Structure formats: C-alpha cells, structure tokens
C-alpha cells in the first residue's frame, strides 16, 4: 500500500511537471506568434503608405517605412525596454523606486533590461527563461508599430535620417514612457488615477498621432497641397487598392497586437494560476477580444461609409473603430462596441477636414485616426466604465477604480507625451537642416534623386515627374 502511494505520488509529480512544461511552452508560443502577426501590421503600413504616395515618391516612402521598423526595434533593445521597467513610478517618486508590485524602478530595470552586465542573461538566449524574449519581442513590435503610425502623415517631404531620429524618439522613448505610466501595474496613472487602456488607444495611438502632429507643424505641407488663399488641394496617392489592402493587413495584425495585451495564467510572471488577465491583472479572455474587435472593425467601416462612401476612409474607419474601443475591450459589451465604433467612423472625416483647415497636411489622416480617435476612446471608457476595478485582486484595497476624471487625466498626459516630444525633436532636426526635403526635389520626385531603384516600368511615369 505504501509503495503504491509513493508510486502514485511520483506519478502525480511527473504529471504536474509535464503540465507545467506544456503551460510554459504554450505561453512562450502564444507570445511568440503575436510577433509575426504584428509584423503584418508593418506589411500593411508599407503597402498603405506606398499606395498613398505618388508614383515619383513610392520607393522613398517604402525606404523610410522600413528604416522606422528596423531602427525602432534595435533602439528598443538598446534602451527602450529599460525605460518601460524603470519609469512607472516616476515622477511621483523622483528617485524612480519600485512600486507596490515590486516589478518596476531603476534597480529592477537595471537587473533585467540592460544588454550588458548581469542583466544581459535576460536579453539573450537563456534556456531557463522562456518569457523575457517573447515579452521583449511583443513590446518591440508595439514600439515599431507606434513609430510606423506617425510615418504615413509625413510622406513625400520628410528627409529619411531626420525621420528616423524622430521615429527612434517616438518608438523607443515617448510611447514607452506612456506605457510605463499607464500600462503597468505599478504605473502612477494606474495606481493614482485608475487609468485603464487595455488595447493602448491612448498610449500607442494617441501618443503616435499627436507626435505626428508635432512633427507636421515643423515640417510643413507638401508642395502644392495648399493654395495661396489657404484652400487645400487633394493629392491622390498612386494606388488606392494597395492602400486599402494595406489597411486591411493592419487590421489582421491588430488581432496579434491585442492578443499580446493579455497576460496568460499559470506562470511565475502571471497574475493568476487559472485565469487570463489584462496587463493590469483584471479579467480578460481571447473570447472577449473576438467579440469586440470584430464588431468594432465592422462598426467603424459602416460609420465611415455613412459619411464618406470612400473606401480609403472606410478602411480608416475600420482602424478607428477598433481604436475607439481599445481602452475598454475587456469590459465593453458587444453592442456598446458597435455604437462607439460607428460614431468613431462617422466623426473621422469631419475631424480630418477640421485639422486640414489649420493648414496641416496630414497625408493619410494619421493625427485624426490615431490621435483624435485614440483620445476619444480613452475618454469614452471614463464615461461608460466608471467604477470598474482598475487593478486585479492583488492590489491594495484603496486602489483607485476607473473614472471619467482618471481617463481625462490620462488623455491629457497621452496628448502631451506625444505632441511635446514630437514638436521638440522635429524642431531640433529642422534646425539641423535634416527635416524638410527641398522643394525642387519634391517637385522632381524623391525616387529619382535618392533611390537607386525603380518602382514601376519606364512606361509608367507620373505627370509631376514629366513636368
């Protein structure tokens, strides 16, 4: 009998060990697969941006987009990841010490997020660590996505290296600070104001959108965009089908982006042993995403169709629909999502037109789709979700819940974290003569001047190039 009990105990231990291995490998594979899904966002941005560009500038736009991806990922490795773990309590704690959960602060970041010294073991191959690489990879793609969002607004007149510098500041610093403050269980926006932004409407989209606005003010419009009387001309891209297909690929990638926002159960780094959660430790499931993301995408398309009948704005509405509910994808009911997303799709084009009235040449509606709708989404959650818990059951009892006030504070912070660094860095780049492409080159076409390749056969040239 005793032998049997011992044998059963050993078998049980073996089964538990095997189950843990399965769970660990599943979690590693889950986050790993979000990475190629998010690369699809970049395939989408590439198509979208090149399609929205005139023939004479197509490859130049593609080059810029590819470099934003590459430089952001590398700089996120070198220092961006460190900022995320170091800054959650700053400036509430000027010394940037550890927060309540003790997974933040400069000391913690030094231990896990620097590619040198002892922490290097968490920044490279390590058979005992199945989490750091896939989490870093997912965040690196969040960073690259944020930088690429701003890219489209600036096409056809921004210099390549000047843009890359702006992209690095956005992707490896500005949005990372926003994430540390509002997308981390120790972030002061979360612990002090109950700020909630599950799908990063504010900390990715609004930050990127208003960062782009800061650059646009210093960059100026494309040659020929505005007339002497201030009225605007429409500058059509060379390939609307490419642009619309690119936007749809971005939507595909969004599913990966959003599934990476879920914390799986059963691991040492999980919030719970048996339930998936948001990054804040509040309840979340993939099923919730399936309902709400599909409905938001559809609502946004329909809303934009009602107002514009234009496939470009319909697909932009699709993005806007998802962004408008991203903050509360974990707690919105499906029909609520339909309503919010349709409204987002409807207000999109009027908001873009309003911005253009100020002489801002946002070539793809980036500031509106990501910036304005991002803030709209953050605030809407405050209107509809006040009182919902901001953190999981592990948090102190007096933790602040979601509130309209907290979401408005978060929206203001996200606006500033985008606009101020965007304006300052582009102003510095402008002063260094590295921001705006000379008008003669814009008229001739950027590809002919600086790209040693040809986008299309000789028979397909742009009228602008001929002139």
């Amino acid at each position, binding site marked *: 009998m005793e032998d049997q009990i011992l044998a059963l105990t050993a078998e049980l231990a073996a089964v538990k060990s095997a189950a843990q291995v399965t769970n660990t490998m599943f979690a590693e594979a889950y986050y790993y697969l979000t990475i190629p899904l998010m690369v699809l966002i970049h395939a989408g941005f590439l198509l979208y941006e090149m399609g929205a560009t005139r023939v004479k500038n197509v490859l130049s736009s593609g080059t810029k987009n590819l470099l934003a991806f590459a430089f952001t990922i590398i700089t996120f490795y070198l220092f961006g990841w460190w900022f995320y773990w170091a800054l959650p309590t700053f400036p509430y704690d000027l010394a940037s010490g550890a927060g309540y959960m003790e997974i933040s602060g400069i000391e913690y970041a030094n231990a896990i997020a620097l*590619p*040198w010294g002892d922490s290097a*073991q968490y920044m*490279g191959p*390590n058979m005992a660590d199945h989490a750091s690489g896939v989490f870093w990879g997912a965040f690196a793609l969040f960073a690259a996505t944020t930088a690429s969002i701003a890219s489209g607004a600036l096409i056809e007149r921004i210099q*390549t290296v000047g843009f890359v510098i702006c992209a690095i500041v956005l992707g490896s610093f500005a949005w990372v600070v926003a994430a540390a403050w509002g997308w981390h269980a120790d972030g002061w926006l979360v612990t002090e104001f109950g700020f909630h932004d599950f799908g990063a409407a504010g900390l990715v989209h609004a930050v990127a959108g208003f960062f782009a606005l800061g650059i646009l003010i210093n960059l100026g419009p494309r040659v020929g965009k505005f007339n002497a009387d201030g009225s605007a001309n429409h500058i059509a891209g060379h390939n609307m089908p490419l642009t619309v297909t690119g936007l749809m690929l971005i939507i595909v990638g969004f599913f990966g982006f959003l599934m990476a926002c879920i914390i799986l159960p059963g691991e040492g780094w999980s919030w719970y042993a048996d339930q998936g959660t948001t990054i804040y430790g509040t309840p979340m499931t993939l099923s919730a995403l399936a309902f709400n993301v599909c409905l938001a995408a559809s609502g946004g398309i329909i809303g934009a169709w009602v107002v514009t009948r234009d496939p470009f704005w319909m697909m932009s509405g699709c993005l806007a629909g998802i962004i408008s509910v991203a903050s509360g994808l974990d707690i919105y009911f499906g029909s609520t999502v339909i309503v919010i997303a349709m409204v987002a799709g409807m207000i999109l084009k009027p908001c873009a037109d309003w911005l253009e009235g100020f002489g801002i040449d946002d070539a793809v509606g980036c500031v509106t789709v990501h910036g304005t709708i991002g803030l709209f989404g953050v605030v809407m959650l405050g209107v509809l979700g006040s009182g919902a818990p901001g953190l999981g059951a592990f948090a102190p009892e007096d933790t602040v819940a979601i509130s309209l006030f907290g979401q408005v504070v978060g929206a203001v912070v996200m606006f500033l974290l985008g606009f101020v660094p965007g304006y300052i860095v582009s102003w510095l780049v402008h002063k260094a003569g*590295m921001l705006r492409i000379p008008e003669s080159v814009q008229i001739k076409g950027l590809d002919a*001047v600086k790209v040693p390749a040809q986008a299309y056969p000789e028979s397909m040239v742009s009228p602008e190039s001929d002139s």
Partner: protein
Amino acid sequence: MGYFAESFAELYNADGWIDMGMYIGSGSSAPGWWTVIASVMLIAVLAKGNADEQEHYK
C-alpha cells in the same frame, strides 16, 4: 569571450538547464562590448546616411 560550456552535460545538470545566458560570452563583459560596438555602428550609419542624403539634395 568564448563559449562557456564544453559539453552538453555542462549545460544540463540534474536540476535542468543552467539558469544563465547560454550565448557566446555569457557571464563575461563581452555582451557589453558587443552592445557598444552595435551602438557605435548605428550612430555611424545615421551620420553617413545623413551626409549622403544631403549630397543628393545639392
């Protein structure tokens, strides 16, 4: 600078895989130096890229 283990057995012990980086230069100052080299290359590429770009616009 080299690889720290000479055999499979050294990488794996009775408790499982060793709990440290398993890359070339693990446990030494090599990762830091590689990081410095990569950073310098990145800055040099941006500087050269900008110089070339300004040439194009002349």
